């Protein structure tokens, strides 16, 4: 016999105000797991959590540690699963410790005073969440992070195997966001089952053992973060283009949202190097342009950024002159592009060919944040070439580019008005 899941839902359906919010959700969570519910607003994350806690009327089946929810009374449910809602307020100013003590309610008899057990569990919960020292402080005098930790302690005081967290990091500073999830991870490690609605995909990827992606009341994908957080799944659920890649610094899963509509696939070729192209690539790629870049070398931030966006890039080995092959390719892209952008790059003998490649561009923008003479280490030939480029180019500063693109109609899709 397989042991019961800590939480199990089968074909869960829930209607609210005449709308079908959950349309047949299957889900299970075991002790030791953090399962993250992700999905766009209105996907049903909160509703699902509330249904798992027996707080909304639902059809289908929910089992808490093998027991059907509809055969448990409210008190039994409260001892099996604790919900930490998105935002709680108490109207009147209670000291933190009393708030945590409220979590003991399902364990207390009407005419009994707080027991030694109540005080022990509250003390333990407050120690765990590092709120012991806030015990006597009034809730409304605490910071957002402290409040959230007090409410987590209150959920822990309920002493349940299952914890349901509804966007526990919403409205917190980013340092506190991680903190709450570190607590959740430790709690899972202690043998609890945590189900959390999470809006931040990076946090979900980082802390969850499994992720359930919801969209329009259904499970779109379910599994380990790397299997769920794919561009296809996210495009499905959120209806936007998303790039997912391992973050170069942390090695963790990261993603980047693309607007996708503005650029409409117009080809922009970016010539840069030494970090000059990075801001341009960051600006263009998410706008939905077909961006290419060249010639960049490993070790250059520009190359890291272009790889993060999956930008087709001409590369050559570092610390040597641009190879003929790379030059040809770079020039080909510049010729093909609807717009070629020469960034505010430093030019030496090794990368002089980058300016050369721009000469055949159909339409040219030169970004000049500071005088070229200060960036010219060729002793002559580059200055001549640069001057020639400038003659037929639009000259802008890097931070003027976005505005210029919008004004000049370059952001308008190719198929509209323009001839």
């Amino acid at each position, binding site marked *: 016999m397989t042991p019961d899941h800590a939480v199990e839902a089968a074909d869960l359906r829930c209607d609210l105000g005449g709308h079908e919010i959950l349309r047949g959700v299957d889900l299970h969570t075991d002790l030791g797991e953090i399962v993250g519910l992700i999905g766009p607003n209105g996907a049903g994350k909160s509703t699902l959590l509330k249904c798992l806690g027996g707080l909304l009327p639902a059809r289908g089946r929910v089992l808490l540690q093998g027991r059907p929810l509809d055969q448990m009374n*409210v008190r039994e449910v409260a001892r099996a699963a604790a*919900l930490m809602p998105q935002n*709680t307020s*108490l*109207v009147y100013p*209670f000291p933190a410790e009393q708030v945590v003590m*409220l979590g003991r*309610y*399902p364990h207390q008899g*009407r005419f009994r005073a707080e027991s030694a057990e109540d005080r022990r569990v509250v003390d333990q919960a407050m120690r765990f969440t590092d709120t012991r020292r806030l015990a006597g402080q009034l809730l409304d005098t605490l910071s957002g992070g402290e409040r959230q930790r007090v409410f987590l302690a209150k959920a822990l005081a309920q002493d349940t195997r299952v914890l349901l967290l509804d966007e526990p990091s919403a409205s917190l500073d980013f340092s506190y966001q991680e903190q709450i999830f570190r607590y959740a991870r430790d709690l899972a490690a202690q043998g609890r089952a945590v189900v959390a609605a999470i809006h931040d995909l990076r946090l979900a990827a980082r802390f969850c053992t499994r992720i359930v992606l919801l969209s329009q009341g259904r499970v779109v994908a379910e599994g380990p973060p790397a299997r769920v957080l794919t561009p296809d799944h996210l495009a499905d659920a959120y209806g936007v283009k998303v790039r997912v890649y391992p973050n170069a610094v942390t090695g963790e899963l990261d993603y980047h949202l693309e607007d996708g509509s503005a650029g409409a696939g117009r080809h922009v070729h970016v010539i840069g190097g030494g970090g000059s192209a990075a801001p341009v690539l960051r600006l263009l790629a998410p706008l939905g342009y077909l961006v290419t870049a060249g010639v960049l070398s490993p070790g250059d931030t520009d190359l890291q950024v272009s790889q993060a966006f999956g930008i087709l890039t001409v590369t050559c080995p570092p610390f040597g002159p641009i190879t003929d092959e790379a030059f040809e390719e770079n020039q080909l892209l510049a010729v093909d592009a609807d717009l070629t952008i020469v960034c505010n790059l430093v030019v030496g003998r090794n990368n002089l060919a980058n300016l050369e490649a721009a000469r055949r561009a159909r339409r040219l923008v030169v970004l000049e944040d500071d005088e070229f003479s200060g960036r010219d280490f060729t002793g002559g030939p580059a200055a001549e070439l640069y001057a020639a480029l400038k003659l037929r180019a639009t000259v802008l500063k890097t931070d003027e580019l976005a505005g210029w693109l919008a004004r000049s109609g370059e952001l308008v899709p190719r198929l509209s008005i323009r001839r």
Partner: protein
Amino acid sequence: MGSVTVPWADTAAVLLAKLGFPVGPVDAKWDSIIFLVRLPRVLGAALIGAALAVSGAVMQGLLRNPMADPGIIGVSAGAGFGAVLALSFGFAAQAVWSLPLFASLGSLTATAIIFVLSIRRGAVGLFTLLLAGLAVSTFFAAGTSLVLTFASRDNIAQFLFWAMGNLAGVRWESLALVVVPIAVGLALLLVFGRELNVLLLGELEARSLGLNVFAVRMALLVLVSVTTASAVCISGPIGFIGLIVPHILRLLLGPDHRLLLPASALGGACFLVACDLVARLVLANQEVNVGIVTALLGAPYFVFVLVRSEKRESGL
């Protein structure tokens, strides 16, 4: 103390004699003043003050609204309508108990209508409760005015006297009618301290803590309406006790209902006894209605709290 001064020694003697202590002969004049007039009045004031203050504290917790008081569930308006009926149709002239009886029936009717309107699919809609309370109260107040239109001058004067809230009419007979419902209501309300604390978290959280929100809300509303109806039916509606006594005590003792409710009972009792004393003594040969005293003290305080809470919200 009162318009007739009874010496302290005689007061003590009367009280002790009634409790069965052998204190020797007591002056019959003092005996009747103390025992027939003053004692029931003080006990009534204490009981009514406790009932109103505890009910107020409960309503403020239940509705999660510091400006709530028992009047919201139509108790006062209903009692007024019942009272005016009792007066206009002459029942009040025939029997002492008829006015309290009609008043309490009126307030329970108004409250029942409000409950029926605000219960939807096994839940008490607090917002609906507030609006239904307003509508039903207005309706009953209009009914009262309508009856008063056709009432005699005497009846109008009697009604106004009652409606301003006073304890002059409290006698052993009327007290006997209400002492049981008030005492039982108070005792039951006092054991709901923990539930009220949990309810402050909001409906969702209260349920996730295993509280049967519907049952507890219904129980509290019924207890509050019975207790308050019993109180106002003999004294008329006495304003602001239910509002300011819990407020002051919450400032002093914190919002924990396990402490706030018994403290409100005690505080409400003391406050109304004190206000009644002021009402009796402030003018030489004329009693002021105690409702006027509590309102004169309560209204400025209400404004003070309002202004302060607005300041806090706007961050000043």
